Structures are given as structure tokens and as C-alpha cells.
């Protein structure tokens, strides 16, 4: 089955405790799948960017095999609140 925004969202919520997920399907028409995700999770607390991205990459390991271009941003709930306030 092909990768869908909903599948990505569900996995991120279930596996890394995401409290907020934005998934944007950036696939150009007739091209391979491309996604841009914003993930907010308390599990990112105290973790460097590399660790956070790896958590997301590992969570979506199977899907990434089919995704051509994947972009991500990882925030803690605190960072997310701060960003929304701007």
C-alpha cells in the first residue's frame, strides 16, 4: 500500500508519542512520494536534533523506502508553544 499522510501521522503518534503532527504531501503530480512533516513530542525533550530526526526516521523506516523526498521538523511541546506565539 502506498504511503499516506494519515499513515505517517498515526505511526508518529503511536510510536514516538507525538502530540501534534502536520503532514504535508508535497508530491509533484506523477512523481514519487514527497512529504514534509512537523512533529511535536515530549519525547524530544533533552535530545539533540540528530537524535530527534533519527527517532522519526526509525519510526518511518519502512515508509522512507518508498518516499523520494522527506523533510521534517521536530519540536518539543514547549518549542511548539513558543513558535505558535510568534
Amino acid at each position, binding site marked *: 500500500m502506498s504511503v499516506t499522510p494519515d499513515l505517517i501521522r498515526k505511526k508518529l503518534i503511536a510510536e514516538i508519542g507525538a502530540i501534534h503532527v502536520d503532514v504535508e504531501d508535497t508530491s509533484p503530480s506523477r512523481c514519487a512520494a514527497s512529504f514534509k512533516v512537523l512533529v511535536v513530542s515530549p519525547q524530544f525533550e533533552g535530545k539533540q*536534533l*540528530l537524535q530527534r530526526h533519527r527517532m522519526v526516521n*526509525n519510526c518511518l523506516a519502512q515508509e522512507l523506502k518508498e518516499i*523520494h*523526498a522527506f523533510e521534517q521538523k521536530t519540536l518539543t511541546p514547549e518549542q511548539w508553544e513558543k513558535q505558535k506565539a510568534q
Partner: protein
Amino acid sequence: MANFTDAASLQQFDELLKNNSKSLTVVHFHAPWAPQCSQMNDVMAELAKEHKHTMFVKLEAEAVPEVSEKYEITSVPTFLFFKGGEKIDRLDGAHAPELTNKVQRLGSGGGGAVGAGDVPKEDLNQRLKRLINAAPCMLFMKGSPQEPRCGFSRQIIQILKDHNVQYSSFDILSDEEVRQGLKTYSNWPTYPQVYVSGELIGGLDIVKELVESGELENTFPKTVSLENRLKSLINKSPVMLFMKGNKEAAKCGFSRQILEIMNNTGVEYDTFDILEDEEVRQGLKTYSNWPTFPQLYVKGDLIGGLDIVKELLEGGELVSVLKGEN
């Protein structure tokens, strides 16, 4: 000939892979309008005669988009190598010697003893370690900085350039073993990947965040061109004197004289000993188009040497010049 054929659809392609899963299959993604593709088809035809057990497949890239897109074919000619239904290598571009070499290497042997598998893997890890340490900053990308071949690689190059980062790069499209091996080695599934001192920093998203947070400067080695260095030095203080020796011990007559004059003005100034740095000594002559030392700068502008300073002194203008007035 039996081992050289066309695939005109996804179904045909899959069937060919399945039917030939025990030996090597080489797929040439080509386009009728590209002359290099015709040449490479000729090369393939010759190889097919010599390698009877290898299947050679021509696939028109634009006619079968499902296959081209699945394997990220972005240019022609591109060759993919399959065994056991799995892609095992890739060659982008019209490189007949490399194609021949890959067919020979991948087509021969195969299984091998159980223990034999350990040796190539060890070699690969050593190789990957060597590659990520090849330069203080290493970028693994698609294509080269001059010709990036995907949007993400292009973006990261622009960022590194904008921030004067000094780096070397490796084209993962040129080596499928490195491309796949590094994903496992670094537990990072995508490209570009950027390393500093052999440590993975991350991909494009992380580099972008480092820019936003202002941490990029601290993370990456920076190119400091001589010109930038000289500009920085002449602006180190409002009044900068480049001389032989320093304030406590001038090492030539002209430097000693100019020190005396400067000290009498009461104006604050700093010095740089050109005897300590040949690069600055020669560079500054070119930069300022002034062949001798000492050289006096005020707010980054060359005033001149001893003779000019003497004239300014006699004319009563020296102090105002040193203060940056007029």
C-alpha cells in the same frame, strides 16, 4: 539474442527480473533522443555476447515512468544492476569502461562461502570510515557541487556556500555500495548527509535548523580567504601599524622612526609584526598595492609609509588624519 531485450512496460520489467533472478540483470534506462544512449546500447550488445548468463534490458525511461520513478531515474543513460530481484548497484552516465567493469565484477561469482561474506563488509566499513574522514567537512550528495542532481543536494550546497563553509563532497550516484552502506553505517536513511570531523551532523533539515539557530558557524570549518584575513587585520584597531617588530622592539630603522612619531601624537594604535607572518607580509603588499613596510592604516584605509607620515607631520595634519577626521 536471447539475453538482450527490451522492456516496454512495468509488467514486462517485473517478469524479466523474476525470470532471471538467479543471475545478473543489467537495465539500461535510455531515451531515443540521446546519442550517448545509442552508443551505450551498442556497448551493451557487445557485452551481451561476452556474458551469456547476464540479462541485458533496454528500457525507454520516459515510456515506462512507473519504473523510472521507482528507481529515481533523473537522467539518461542510467544503468541499474539486479540480482535475486534486488537492485545491487547503479551507474549514472555513459561510462563504457565502468559499465564493462561492473558487468564483469557483478556477473561473476555470486554466492561464495558463508565466511566470505564477512570480508567485503569489513572492507566496506573501513572504506566508509575513510570516506567520512576524507576532509574536515564531507558532504555526501547526489551529483557534485557544480552539478547537483537533486533539489535537497542543491539546497545544502547553497547554504554551505553562503556561509563560506569549506568542504569536500562525494557523489553517491557514482557508487551504490557507498550509497547503501552509509545509510546503515550512520543509521541515516536519506541524502544529502553532511559530516564534520567524521561525525554525522545530519541532512538538509538539520543544516537549515543550524542556520536558524545561528549554530552553523560553530559547527562547520570555515574558509578564511587571505583577503578576508587581511581586511580583518587592517581593521583590528582604528589605527593599525604593520611594521618590523613591535612597540617594544622595532627591528628596522624606518619602523623605529615611525614608532617615535606615533608615540608623540598620543593617539592610540596597535601594531602587527610582519616578520612573524610571511603570508600577511606579501599579501598586504598586493592587497594595498604598496611595496614597502611600515604601512599605516586608519579605519581600514592605507595612509602610507614613513615618508608620508613625516609629510603629514610637517604639514600639521597627522593627528587629524589619525583620528579619522577629513
